[in-house]
């Protein structure tokens, strides 16, 4: 595994942790069905997080998540083949 792939994995892990935190807030604020929707589609959770960042005081968390996503995409592009084998997914 090259260093870019390793870093991409770490950013992915950070992204997953923040996704779970925001998803919990989504469940708490919007109920089970919208929470499931957020679980199904992480983009929805991301959009909802930004739309409610001020109210829920999670602006910094959302900034970190956004940075991690961008960094992850860049690292995956740099990582090339090996990273591509691990990352792949477009929802």
């Amino acid at each position: 595994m090259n260093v870019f792939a390793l870093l991409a994995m770490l950013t992915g892990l950070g992204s997953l942790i923040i996704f779970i935190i925001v998803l919990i807030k989504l469940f708490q604020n919007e109920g089970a069905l919208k929470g499931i929707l957020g679980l199904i589609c992480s983009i929805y959770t991301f959009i909802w997080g930004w739309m409610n960042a001020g109210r829920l005081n999670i602006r910094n968390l959302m900034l970190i998540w956004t940075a991690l996503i961008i960094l992850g995409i860049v690292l995956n592009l740099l990582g090339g083949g090996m990273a591509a084998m691990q990352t792949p997914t477009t929802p």
Partner: protein
Amino acid sequence: MPERKLFPPVLALLLQNRRLAGIISFTAVLQAGLLLAGLPGWPCPVAHTLGVPCPGCGLTRATVALARGDWQAALALHAYAPVLVLVLALCAGAGLLPARPRAALVGAVAAVERRTGLGAALTLGLVVYWLARLLFAPAAMLRLARG
């Protein structure tokens, strides 16, 4: 007369928020565009880190295949692709329509959802579909997670 509330609406709640509906449709178009251009799109945090596809993984690829008219590939990738197309069309309508027709659209969707429970059933059905695919077609699901 009090309104009958047999089932909670899901989609209507999304459509009620014009900004949210607009952003969802814009993001979907952007995601599909990136995929068509061969560029990296939204990385699913679940599949990316755990290697297990989330319930929505494959939906963009399936929707793009559907847009190309390749029904077989679309349904093989994700059976919810036609549902997503309908939902996105409704979101685009809710984001773009003027106030009165938008209110009528949201009202109609909410009424259908309350009477039939379609929104809740489709949402829960997607989780069941995902679990079934994980259990009965794990190899295909892993291929899906790898892109």
